[in-house]
Structure formats: structure tokens, C-alpha cells
């Protein structure tokens, strides 16, 4: 089975209802803030990032992807004590990239989703790291093994999150 599309006609574009568009990112940000207090290991996950990727690949619209990523990132930034924009910029890039890639690739199967999530997780972390160090002046340590393992964990969770998103997305 081919995983790349040869023509735009094959691409299926989905949309989400307004309640889903608002409530799902909010729930993701809420869980990201609440769950690590109860389940400490959960801090390794980035649920808002998975939602950003999920929305972007389903909608397949770069503009919608970048705005979704931007808003989710700013919401996430607002809960931290760092300047607003760190997550905003990172997720804008991811949202744009994921939706652009979603046009070219078949992101309906679990394997592609798994690899896509690892890739965008690393992209997200690299962008965040560069901005945090270069613009904000945070002293951050970079560890490839840690990032790769975190990417794997997020990709595993992502496969299930995308399955849930499949249930609420609507064909246009």
C-alpha cells in the first residue's frame, strides 16, 4: 500500500465541529497541567502537541494547522512562568509542517502516524530549544537519547489519541 499520494484528488479532508475544536485542545492542556501532579511520569508526554498534530493532519490545511498550533501553544505558554511564545512558535511550526505533510502522506495508518509523531516531536523540541536558548536565555540541556525516548513515548500515546480524534472528525 502506497503511503504517498500521487494526486490531490485522493486526499480526504476532514473537519471538526466547533465544540470539538474548542474543547479538545482545552482538555489536552488541562490534562497536561493536572495529570503530572498525580502521575509524575506523565510530564514526559506533550498532549497538546499530539492534538496539534492530530488536528493538522486531519484538516490538511496549512493555515488551519498553523493557527491551531499557535493558539494551543500560547494557551500552554500562559500556564508557565516563561514568556509567552515559546510553545506558541514551536507548535505553529509543527502545525504548519504536519498539515503540509498530511497532504503528501497517507496519515491514516498507525505506522505512519507513529513515525510522523516522533519526527514532529523532535522538530518541536529543537525549535523550543533554539528559541529558549537563543532568544530567552534559558539554560537548557539537550540529550538525544532523552528526546528520542520521549518521542517514542509520545508517538505511542499519539496512536491512541489519533484513534480518538478519528471518532470525532467529520468528512467534508
Amino acid at each position, binding site marked *: 500500500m502506497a503511503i504517498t499520494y500521487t494526486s490531490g484528488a485522493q486526499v480526504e479532508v476532514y473537519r471538526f465541529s466547533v465544540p470539538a475544536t474548542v474543547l479538545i485542545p*482545552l482538555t489536552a*492542556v*488541562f490534562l*497536561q*497541567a*493536572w495529570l*503530572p*501532579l498525580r502521575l*509524575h511520569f506523565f*510530564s*514526559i508526554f506533550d498532549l*497538546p502537541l499530539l492534538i496539534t498534530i492530530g488536528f493538522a493532519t486531519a484538516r490538511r490545511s*496549512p*493555515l488551519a494547522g*498553523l*493557527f491551531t498550533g*499557535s493558539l494551543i501553544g*500560547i*494557551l*500552554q505558554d*500562559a*500556564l*508557565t*512562568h*516563561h*514568556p*509567552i*511564545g*515559546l*510553545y*506558541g*512558535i514551536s507548535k*505553529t*511550526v509543527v502545525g*504548519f509542517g504536519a498539515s*503540509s505533510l498530511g497532504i503528501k502522506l497517507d496519515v491514516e495508518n498507525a505506522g505512519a502516524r507513529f513515525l510522523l509523531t516522533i519526527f514532529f516531536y523532535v522538530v518541536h523540541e529543537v525549535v*523550543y530549544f533554539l*528559541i*529558549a536558548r537563543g*532568544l*530567552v*536565555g*534559558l*539554560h*537548557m*540541556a539537550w540529550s538525544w537519547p532523552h528526546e528520542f525516548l520521549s518521542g517514542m513515548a509520545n508517538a505511542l500515546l499519539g496512536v491512541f489519541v489519533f484513534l480518538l480524534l478519528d471518532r470525532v472528525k467529520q468528512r467534508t
Partner: protein
Amino acid sequence: MDVLGRYRNLIVLVGVLFAQVLGLAVQVKRTTDSESTRLVRIWAVDAVTPLERVLVWVETSTSSVWHNYFYLRGVRAENRNLKAQIERMSLEQVRMSQDADQARRLQALLAFKEQFISKTMAAQVIGSSGSEQSRSVYIDKGENDGIKPDMAVITAEGIVGKVLRAYPSTSLVLLINDQSSGVGAILEKSRLQGILKGTSSGEVALEKVMSDETVPAGELVLTSGGDGIFPKGLLVGRVTKVGAGSDLFLNIRVRPAADLSRLEEVLVVTKIDERQALPDQTGAARAVDILAGRLPGVPSKPENAEKGDVPGAAAPGRVATATSAGSEAKPKAAPPPVSAGGGATAVRKTATSSDTGSGTSSGTASGTKPAAAGSDAAKAPPKPLKAVVEPKPQPAVEDIPH
């Protein structure tokens, strides 16, 4: 025009990124960014924290009902153990009060000003920042409850952090393991001072301790009070690792005493008072009172006893402090430990001085005895003490040293 349409997505992306980078640069440039982004932060906090509050409330209520009404296994044994612990701690308190009194007296001589926590507010941790890079938590108390930025946040185990931002009904607490935090700290025994900072991996490091100093692993780290946020002497944690650091400083790792990853309830220090150290005027009386209060059948205050400021206290100790001589000769210096019998004798002599209303030289001489009475009585078994504190004025007079 065709080019604009073709690269529309890229142009929008660049525009959005540029706007965010610009906003970021403005925030970084300003020393206080709290006001410029306050509205966005309040919206975000208001969108997320109500649900967190509800969940925490449900969790707490369920746990409370379960533990208070259903799951009571082992409560009797626990109660018995706690009572025994209270007994032990009462005796320990007697001993400590003597040491504290001595310290206060010395501080008073040196005109020291001491800081103490005069008011705290309990708060519940309802959420976190949700980011590994921002080690901070949200509590369910905010400006409406009197919380202000830069208030210290502690637990019974040790310090936690400080209030970074106060919103109407919640506050953001920056934990001590965040890399942007800084706490003035001092090592308990070596008295070396440093700055406690978080690392990027979430550990806590004590910085600015010179590499030619010796710091043993396991030493306690306390707050130094130099940061103006935490009062001096609060427990921070324990040194876990010491190594050579960069430049001229040691690389000291500290394990926080409070478990920062499992915070549930914290105390916000809402008021810190500063006062000049004064010797405790009731120290000796308190020591005896604690013991006397624990004894069964202690007789009520004699009719002719002086009216002091310690209601319900046994006459000997109370009077010993009420008299000027007693107050002068309170247990300032820790006396050498004596036997239980010695302690009992000492108390008897105190009783004598009080009964005679001493302000005389003999009273002063006997007034020095309560020093032993306070501390030694703590070690004395209750039985002989009980026999001594019974008001027998006539035989007691015979014990006045001449």
C-alpha cells in the same frame, strides 16, 4: 499577485512566527513581563483551573469520606503511638526550651533581630504548569485571599518555593528546583553560605561555595534569610553529592526535604515579623508546668501564693519566675545533668524560695537552682517530683541554704 497567492501559506506562517518572536522579544526585554501578558495568562488560568479545583475537591472529599468513615483500620494503634510520641516530645520540648531560652538571651545581648513566621495560610495544590521546563504549580488561593507575589511557600518538611504570580483566585508558585529560582541558603554545621538554584534537569544545586571548603554529604541545608523571602533557619534539604564545579566553586547537589513532585497541601507565609530577641520570661515556669501538668493529683495553688501570669501552674515554678530574682537567675546556661534525685531537690529549693517570697540574697542563691530545676526536672521521674511539689511550707524552709 500570483506569487502572493502561490506562497500565501508560507507568507502567513512567516507573519505569525514574526509576530510571536516580536512579542517574545518584547517580553524578554522588559524586566517585568507580568503586566504585559497578564490578561492572556488570566484567561488561560481561568479556563483551566476551575476544572482542576473541581477535580481536586472531588478527590479530597472522596478520600476524606473513605479515610474518616470507612477505612479506620489501625486507628487505635496509631492513636496509641501518637500519644506515646506526644509524651516523648513533651519531654523533648522541656529540654529544647532551655536551649532556646539560652539562645534568646545571647541574641538579646548581641541585639540580634530575629525573623519569625507569624501568619500562614494553608493552600491546596491544584495543578502544574504542564511543562518540564517550567517547574511551577498552581495553588487554590490568590489575591482575593491576601496572597501576594514573593511570599514564601513551605510545607512541614521544608521549603517549596515562592509565589511568582497572584491571580484573583489562584497563584503560581515557582518551585525551588526551577532554574530561574534562587534561595539564600546556609549549611547547618559548616555555616557556609550559598545560593540554591534549580538545574535544567530539575535537581537542586547549592552554588557559590568556594572549592577550597569541605562540605560533607548528608549535611543539612537551611535558609539563610538573605533573599528576603524565606525567614532564616527553615529546612531546605540535605546535601547528596559534592564535586568539583566550574571556576572556583563546588558543585553541590541538594535533595529537597519537601517532595516537590508530590505536593498536595502547602503553607503560604503571609506575614513575617521581625523583632529584637528577648529572653523568654516564662521559660523556667513552662518547663515545670509541663511536667506538673502531666502529674496526677497536683494540688491546687496555695492561698498565699503570689499571683503570677501563668494560670494553673504549680506554685514552685511559677513563683520562681515571678520574683525578680527568679527572673534574673533563670536557666540561662545549661547546667550539667544531675540525677533524678538532684532534680527533685532543686525543685524543692525553688518551692522554698517562692514560699518565702525571696528577693533576698538567699532567694537569689536559691533562685539559681531553678536553672537545674527546669532542665533536670525534665529528666526526673515523676514520682519523687510529685512528692516534692506538694505544698509543705514548714519543712521546705529548712532547705534554704544559708
